[in-house]
């Protein structure tokens, strides 16, 4: 029995029919982890005894919650009470939060089994999971390549069938891009759709927690489970949660899909370009109307992001000072010494780079020219989408300019690394939802991702388009050979 290779919705069916038990699923997952985790390094914290114990406790009771007995892996920047939550950073070494993130409370309330924490770029700073203090995670399709980032651990685990359901977080593409390069489904909800309470903040106005799963239906199930207004998060929206699962099966005849010309640039990877083109043709065959459009301020998105996000990050990371929790450096001689040594030792290079950049952009004399200006351009980027959505139901783009690159290939040039997010970043700036689904493979058998962007709170639409496309292809059924 290889239950770990099945989708979540299939397993739920089997559990409902009592053909299997939660322990069966848990055991299969543990088996797979024991086989592949050494090569993958997708998990930051995993204790099989603890997971089994959790599973047994839930399996004891009768089925109640919608996710009863279903295993979920959680990105290491989401607080799980009394469990190691370290954002893959030395500075949070040994940190066990005294409380659960709201999404964890919700999952526990639905009787899901919390299995463990997945690896990530330190504090979500990265597109390759190479900045983790636990070492890089590898792409199951090619162990010499990156799984994307920052939710690389979650994407790799799902892709390798070490996980069924997983949560990631997305600030500039950190769910969608790894999903894209690992051949799985990743959805970033509308800003405010899912509570951020308990998500260790990177950029407060951009972060969202979202599902990384094997197929679109699973993403819909998980999205429904974690969405909703939270009194603990003032930025969460008071908008009712749709039944995302029932909506996906409607057809897409007559839907208008925009193809922004700025996302098909000179010199972009030919294989990616062709994959996307084929996908568009497929969508048209299914009755959608695809038309060119323009998002004129796209070229500024990366600059805006690296000013806004780093500014907020520099402030959000100020609390890591050695005073109350996490690392406190040894041999400290004074208060200043404690701050300096702790942060010097605890933060990796990319974290330091972004803190410095963010601090600079906010500093006296530079605030107007950098941060304030970036906020203004952000509004223009948001307006581009609002304008486009007057005419279109959704926007179709590639998820990344290339398939997975080699480990170590871009680490020496941060700017090149930053450009991996070029297609995903705008959605965070505008607050709109986006999903990445597999749409092909390179000749090296590396996954290519298709991104569908929708209007604010219109996750139903992008799930529906994604589902229809997915079901008309076989990409989601292919598995890496590990």
């Amino acid at each position, binding site marked *: 029995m290889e239950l770990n290779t099945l989708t979540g919705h299939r397993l739920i069916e089997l559990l409902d029919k009592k053909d299997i038990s939660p322990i069966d699923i848990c055991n299969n997952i543990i088996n797979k982890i024991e086989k592949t985790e050494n090569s993958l390094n997708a998990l930051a914290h995993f204790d099989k005894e603890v997971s089994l114990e959790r599973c047994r406790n839930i399996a004891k009771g009768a089925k109640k919650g919608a996710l009863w007995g279903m295993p979920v892996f959680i990105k290491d920047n989401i*607080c799980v009470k009394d469990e190691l939550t370290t954002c893959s950073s030395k500075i949070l070494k040994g940190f066990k*939060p005294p409380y659960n*993130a709201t999404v964890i409370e919700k999952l526990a309330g639905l009787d899901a089994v919390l299995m463990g924490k997945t690896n990530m770029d330190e504090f979500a700073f990265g597109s390759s999971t190479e900045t983790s203090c636990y070492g890089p995670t590898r792409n199951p399709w090619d162990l010499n390549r990156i799984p994307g980032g920052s939710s690389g651990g979650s994407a790799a685990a799902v892709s390798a069938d070490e996980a069924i359901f997983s949560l990631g977080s997305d600030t500039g593409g950190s769910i969608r891009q790894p999903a894209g390069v690992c051949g799985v489904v990743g959805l970033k909800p509308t800003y405010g759709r899912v509570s951020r309470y*308990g*998500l260790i903040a990177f950029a407060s106005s951009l972060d969202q927690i979202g599902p990384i799963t094997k197929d679109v239906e699973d993403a819909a199930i998980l999205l429904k489970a974690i969405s909703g207004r939270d009194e603990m*998060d003032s930025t969460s929206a008071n908008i009712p949660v749709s039944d995302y699962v029932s909506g996906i099966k409607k057809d897409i005849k007559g839907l208008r899909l925009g193809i922004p010309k700025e996302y098909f640039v000179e010199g972009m990877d030919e294989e990616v370009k062709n994959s996307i083109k084929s996908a568009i043709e497929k969508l048209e065959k299914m009755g959608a109307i695809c038309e060119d459009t323009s998002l004129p301020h796209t070229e500024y998105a990366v600059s805006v992001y690296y000013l806004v996000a780093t500014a907020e990050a520099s402030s959000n990371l100020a609390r890591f000072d050695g005073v109350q*929790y996490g690392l406190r450096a040894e041999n400290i001689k004074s*208060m200043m010494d404690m701050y300096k040594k702790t942060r010097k030792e605890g933060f990796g290079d990319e974290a330091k780079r972004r803190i410095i950049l963010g601090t600079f952009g906010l*500093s006296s004399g530079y605030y107007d020219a950098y941060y304030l200006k970036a906020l203004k351009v952000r509004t223009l980027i948001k307006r581009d989408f609002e304008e486009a959505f007057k005419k279109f139901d959704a926007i179709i783009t590639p998820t990344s300019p290339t398939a997975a690159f080699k480990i170590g290939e871009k680490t020496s040039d941060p700017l090149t690394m930053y450009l991996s997010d070029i297609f995903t970043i705008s959605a965070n700036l505008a607050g709109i939802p986006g999903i990445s689904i597999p749409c092909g493979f390179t000749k090296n058998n590396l996954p290519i991702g298709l991104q569908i962007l929708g209007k604010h709170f219109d996750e139903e639409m992008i799930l529906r388009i994604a589902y229809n496309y997915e079901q008309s292809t076989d990409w989601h059924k292919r598995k890496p050979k590990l």
Partner: protein
Amino acid sequence: MSYETVIGLEVHLQLNTKSKVFCGCSADFGSAPNTQVCPVCLGFPGSLPVLNRRALELGAKVAIALNCRIAKKIRFDRKNYFYPDLPKGYQISQFDQPLSQHGSLAIVSGETEKKVRIRRVHLEEDTGKLFHQNDYSLIDFNRSGIPLLEIVSEPDINSPEEAYLYLTALKSILEYLDVSDCNMEEGSLRCDANISLRKKGGKKLGVKTEIKNMNSFKGVKSALEYEGRRQADLLENGERIIQETRLYDAEKGVTEPMRSKEEAHDYRYFPEPDLAPFDFEENFLKAIEKDMPELPEPKKNRFIKDYQLSNYDAAIMASDKSVADYFEKCAALYDNPKIVANWLMGDVSAYMKDNNILIKDLNLKPDQLSGMLKMIDSGVITGKVAKALLIEIIQTGRAPEKLVKEKGLEQISDVNLLETAISQAISENPKSVEDFKGGKDNAVMFLMGKVMQKTKGRANPNKVNEMLREKLKGAK
């Protein structure tokens, strides 16, 4: 060289909400350390702030009372700096869109009234409290997240005395609104001052110094007196004032420069992304305005109009809400408010001072006071007896009418009864008789005093005066 003193005051006020400004922890004072904390006010990773509506309400009340314009849109900003008592590494405050701006506070000195402009009133969170030991420090985060209201004046204050008046006027309003304990010693009201000098008549502001660590209103006044002198001395000697922060040392009575290098702070203010800006709901604001109590100024004016009190008396009666309410209760039971005010400002006030109590603890009901006053009016007792009777009433809690009867305190107006005492007084004090005959009219007062002694203050003073003069005129 004649200098003009220019002072601006910055007051931080802890609001007396039940819970903290961005989380549900209790805001009670005096609990064991770190027992009123949660992930939010401890700045734990992943925690988020949620605004306490009541804090906003109380802040708006103060802003309205200070004649400020309330902002239509409420927005918070992060003030970033590193210090162990600031767990997030930033304070949630308000920078360029504060709760309210452009108000004023009237200060009265004798007959002159002056309006001090209020630059802004805004809402922010308090920090934890540090306790320094020899080679380590402890932090209590109970105070972290307590709602603070920052009230900043324009530099319209021109003397340490005016600064004192400003603080007392402010405290009076704040107590009326019941928004804070307003206790400088406990830390619920903190004050920093900025002071500079300029040549009399000059328009440009001089170099200012910031003074901190003053723990009482008097301390503020003393600190500013010292600093004003210090600056004047420097200027007289042709030296320049260094712009710096100085700490007041109450024991030595001096200000000294702060040693730590906290000057160069770039707070890198930016809008708080965890708290979405929102419109101050019109209905909410209207409800707050409707709920405002009558404030000291309007109450004073009403006392002048309705009770014909003098400006001075009305000001005193109106300055404390408990006293004002008490006064009005008495005035409702007795037809001469001026007399009520006199007694409250005189004997009652003296009693409260001597016994270190507030009017809310005073064991004298308005109907007891008015009852006593009526007995004076109707001649049942003398004014002198009333003074002692007042204390009796307070100490026993018994009705004045009963006490007068039991202790036989009735006024003596009977001529026959007075005759004896008067004759005695005259015969015992021949010199006074001589003095009177010699033209010293106040000999009568002396003799009156003797008669009062003999009658234990019960003699009707007018009658005694009349009878004494008659007797003395006729005496040989």
